[in-house]
């Protein structure tokens, strides 16, 4: 049977599935990075406490640990699988490709994750209940195990951007995919960032402590770690930018840096000033400022970073071989993976997609608009909203609300068909499918009620069919 393995499409109006994934992802990054960073802060603080006989530092660890239990191990541990669920409904073939290449890596990460969850409870609840040396071992092992989860996930995330060299396409080996060109720079960026986030959350905990001496002790240890982590993250981010694929570099220079660079520089400067201020005057740290600073980093730092990472991958969703619209972009001979673009160009999506109603497989005047809507959702909606003014790179605005079907079709027959837009997939469709998409987009741009039109034409088609039957 002639078919491509495309799944049903989940369509979220206005924000698209990409933003659903992005929102969950940002929450997870904040929670998980804080927890890994905090684990190292705990280990360092506890070492100081143990070596210099400062048991009061353990009080801070306990308070921070309780906060962490809720913030990271409720929200973080749920949004972790949550990203999985979100990406499952947004990009099923993307997540499937990752899982089938990295299942054992993910399973190893699961071992660390399990150990980490047991560890955080042990760490918090056994403070003061076991001897200090055993607890110190517990805390250091917890820190290293927490970092283990990051070591394992970052290679997979980096592969999503690209393998960086041809080795994986030739060998199919997981280690060639995992240790890709930008995996270490990516790891460095996240490792530095996690220390900054953990320090910022630590200052929230500090702001609730009344003991001034304890504040001084904690802040004077925390802040240098946060500043060092921030500097390291920036350096590694610069290196990370040198490991990007050409399509990402174009996207970065054309759209992303003009949009986000000022915010990212601002967040670095503001965070540095805030940390220096906290180091200078630990007693002046208050809850409101500490929470605002954490939110500043979340909104102006993590959200753009995650959006950039997601955008730079375009037109791919994994390994430079699966397009974001779920179509296999190229052959990976080592895995017997065959590209699907040419096959779709020859037969069309309507004929090859398993989840298309039979009545829409052949286009006519009655169903052209409906087919166009369905094809736009299948081929475009993973990256674009289809509503005018919507926040996810909406197509109507990209087309300047053009209502000329021929004009839109010309773009589909030209740049898109031949893959000349570096950050867009090559979408090569038969003429009738191009016309259907163009008709749909022109109708949307004209401001007409598309749903109502589709319903009217569907009823008209049914009437025609009934008359023919009679």
């Amino acid at each position, binding site marked *: *049977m002639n*078919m491509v*393995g495309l*799944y*049903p*499409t989940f*369509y979220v109006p206005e924000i698209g599935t990409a933003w*659903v994934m992005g929102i969950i992802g940002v929450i997870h990054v904040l929670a998980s990075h804080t927890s890994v960073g905090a684990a190292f802060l705990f280990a360092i603080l506890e070492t100081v406490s143990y070596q210099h006989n400062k048991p009061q530092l353990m009080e801070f660890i306990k308070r921070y640990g309780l906060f962490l239990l809720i913030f990271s191990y*409720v929200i973080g*541990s*749920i949004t972790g*699988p*949550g990203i999985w*669920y*979100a990406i*499952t*409904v947004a990009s*099923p073939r993307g997540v*499937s*490709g990752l*899982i*089938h*290449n990295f299942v*054992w890596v*993910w*399973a190893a990460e*699961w*071992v660390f*994750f*399990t*150990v980490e*969850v*047991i*560890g955080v409870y042990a760490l918090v609840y056994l403070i003061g*209940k*076991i*001897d200090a*040396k*055993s607890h110190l*071992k*517990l805390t250091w*092992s917890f820190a290293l*195990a927490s970092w*283990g989860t990051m070591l394992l996930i970052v290679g997979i995330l980096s592969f999503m951007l690209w393998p960086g060299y*041809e*080795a994986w396409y030739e060998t199919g080996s*997981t280690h*060639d995919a995992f240790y890709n*060109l930008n995996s*270490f720079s990516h790891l460095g960026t996240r490792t530095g960032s996690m220390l900054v986030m953990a320090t910022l959350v630590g200052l929230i905990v500090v702001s609730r402590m009344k003991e001034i001496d304890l504040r001084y002790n904690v802040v004077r240890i925390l802040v240098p770690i946060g500043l060092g982590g921030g500097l390291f993250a920036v350096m590694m981010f610069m290196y990370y930018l040198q490991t990007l694929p050409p399509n990402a570099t174009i996207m970065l220079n054309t759209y992303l840096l003009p949009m986000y660079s000022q915010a990212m520089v601002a967040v670095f400067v503001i965070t540095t000033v805030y940390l220096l201020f906290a180091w200078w005057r630990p007693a002046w740290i208050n809850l409101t400022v500490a929470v605002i600073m954490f939110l500043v980093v979340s909104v102006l730092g993590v959200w753009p970073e995650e959006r950039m990472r997601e955008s730079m991958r375009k037109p791919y969703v994994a390994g430079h071989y699966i397009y974001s619209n779920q179509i296999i972009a190229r052959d*990976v001979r080592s*895995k*017997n993976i065959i590209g699907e673009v040419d096959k779709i160009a020859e037969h069309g999506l309507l004929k090859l997609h*398993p*989840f298309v*109603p039979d*009545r*829409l497989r052949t286009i006519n005047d009655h169903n052209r608009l409906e087919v166009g809507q*369905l094809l736009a959702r299948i081929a475009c909606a993973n990256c674009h909203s289809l509503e005018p003014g919507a926040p996810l790179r909406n197509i109507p605005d990209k087309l300047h609300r053009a209502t000329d079907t021929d004009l839109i079709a010309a773009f589909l027959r030209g740049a898109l068909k031949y893959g000349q837009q570096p950050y867009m997939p090559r979408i090569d469709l038969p003429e009738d499918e191009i016309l259907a998409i163009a008709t749909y987009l022109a109708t949307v741009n004209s401001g007409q009620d598309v749903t109502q039109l589709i319903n009217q034409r*569907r009823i008209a088609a049914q009437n025609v069919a009934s008359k023919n039957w009679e």
Partner: protein
Amino acid sequence: MEIGAIMQHLRDPAGIPAHPLLFQGLMVFTWTLHIAFVHLTLGAGGIAIWGYSQSENEWLRLAAAMTKVAKISVSLLIVLGVAPLLFTQVLYDPQWYVSNLLSSRWVIAFIFLLIIAYCLWFVVYFATYHGTPNKYVMYSGLVALFIFLVNGLIMHVLAYQAILPEHWLEWYMPGGIVDNTGSSLHAISWPRYLFIISLSAPLAGLFLIAYTHYFAVRADYPPDYLEFVRGLAKKIAPPGFAIALILFFAWQMIVPFTHPIAWLLGLSLLIMALWTRTNSFTDSGYWSLLGGVGVLALLSLWRELIRVNLLANFGYTIDSYPVNLDIPSTVLFFTTLITVGGSVGGYYLSLLYRAGRISGKYTTEEPIARLGSSAIAVLVIWIAIFFAYGITIWLSNNFLKN
């Protein structure tokens, strides 16, 4: 298009990196652990809420303890749920993804509902610091439990829709009109769902028996209190297993075939009902837990056999999944499981177990102290190998092959 052929085409073209039976075994095993903590959460949560509504001190003390148990149990059910989710997606990717896409909004809702429910349970937990929670706190606990049950239902639906491929097309495009909203839960098997959920009560009973055994050595746990808890366990477990057995038969009535494992599962419920009724459990508390895990292992196996049988009707079998063997990553998992899981996980569990049985401060014995040192050594060596191996690959691919 024929649904069996569709499923074959939906399989990931990358294949799988080891023999499918390996993944299947791990999936069945880890799902057993996951569902055990689902039951413990619901059972302990139910006991806690009921306990707070009572006036006796024993009830209030037990309720506070079960609040904490449920809180930790949620964490563990989440983390232990990741593994079977992973292995399911390896072998049954077409079924799992289609099912999720048919109910996408519920999939996303599941995440936020779980966060809300868990936070509500923390409200109950923190309230116990200040004595008995008031009625509003109790309501939040009840809402949390209700949401946990709803989330269980969502997971049930996703699993159930996945084994009914003959309905996928009509669910996705009813009357030939495509529904991209993912707003419906299309199929619920109430007997299956209720049977699995019903096991929460008897399994919580088994947990209580182990609880009394564990704390029997502590002076601050008076014999009266432990006897009360043991008595409660014996009130819950036997009828709980009996009710589960009835629901099990109701479920089997609609399963279109049978298997010796199904009969064994039914028999195990009967045995557990009789055993928990007749045994006093004064000196064998942990055996009860082992019995409970045995029941769940049979359930996990039977659940998998149902899936295997139903999908085989459409020509879908896991042994036909293309294998692209990948030795290094396979070694990575098993060595990590044995070394990190064994030493670090072993150290934490030993500490928690030993410290919990002592009222005052616990000083580790030499073997456990050595285990702690080896845990750190294992992690340092693991990380060193991770970088050494990785940098070698990275340099080789960067400079030698390009």
